[in-house]
């Protein structure tokens, strides 16, 4: 029972952490493109 719960926590936890990072990635790309710092 406990192992099943921890497995569920692992799957949902890793998924949520990656989901957050995917959103951060998209938003970071967006703001650096919307507000460029003057070329490369």
């Amino acid at each position, binding site marked *: 029972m406990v192992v099943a719960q921890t497995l569920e926590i692992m799957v949902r936890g890793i998924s949520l952490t990656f989901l957050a*990072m995917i959103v951060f*990635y998209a938003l970071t790309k967006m703001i650096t493109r919307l507000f460029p710092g003057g070329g490369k």
Partner: protein
Amino acid sequence: MQGWFQALGNLSAGNLIMFVVGGVLIYLAIKKDYEPMLLLPIGFGAILANIPMSSAIGNGGFLTLLYNAGIKTELFPVLIFIAVGAMIDFGPLLQQPAMIFFGAAAQLGIFLTTILGASLGFSLKEAASIGIIGAADGPTSIYVANLFAPQLLGPISVAAYSYMALVPVIQPPVITALTTPEERRMRMDLNLVRVSRRARILFPIMVTVVAGILAPMSVALVGSLMFGNLIRECGVLDKLSRAAQNDLADLVTLVLGITIGSTMTADRFLTPATLMILGMGLIAFVLDTAGGVLFAKLLNIFLKHKINPMVGAAGISAFPMSARVIHKLAQREDPQNFILMQSVGANVAGQIGSIVAGGVILSLVGPMA
């Protein structure tokens, strides 16, 4: 005189062992320079707490007052995060946004160690608190442990800060075992995008809102980290930024360490659980490092421009030590290989990743346990 004899009479073998433990922490801080700002106060706090009839702890004791005011209320970790946020330059991450994924991959050990802890008999909340040690993030470890397993706060904090100091010892063998010399010699293109002030200002606000929506329990941690960073980046609060980076960081660190040390009384610390926590904390660190490296290797199957897999290991939160370790390892294989900027980008992502993972753990485990 009577009090002196009473104290001596109450001195137990456990107290004496804790004096030695405190002494070892102070030795490591001074002689080995292992996180001295925290290990020294923790060590001394442990000694203060184990003197029989100590007026430092208990009813009216100043360490108990500090504990109730700063740890129990979660105030100290939050204040530390404001200071840390003011110190961090997210520029290397904004210049290479793809590095942000390593901040997630290198949190794998947290979740795997939670399973290990639960299967070894710890409660779900205790196991999750132990797993967070792998985040290599002291304040998050304290924050989660205090909410989920306050009775384990001492050993968890000691493990978290000790292993953070031991990153140069722990990470290289794990990385070497998981990579070939060719992979370690891999060079990476450095295409840095210039980042505007507006983007730097928007980033902390954006991260706070997104993390808050995805994991509301992380708002206190992410919010304070990003508040500190906003003070740094806004350009109009230099005085406050300097105060957060120096005065606030120093003051809170000063009381945080000694307060945590005061929780290390012999009856709470000298248990088999402490040894298990120290062992599992190490496993969490190793698994986090492995998670980052293996994720980079997985990405390389699909990427045209390959990533040096060692950069993935910098996705832990120990900043900037982990990035330096990775860069040194790369230079050991090829002195002309420079991957410091990429490693710093991943390392900064680890700061965010560890807090998000901490918030996710709080959100998921809280309702279940």
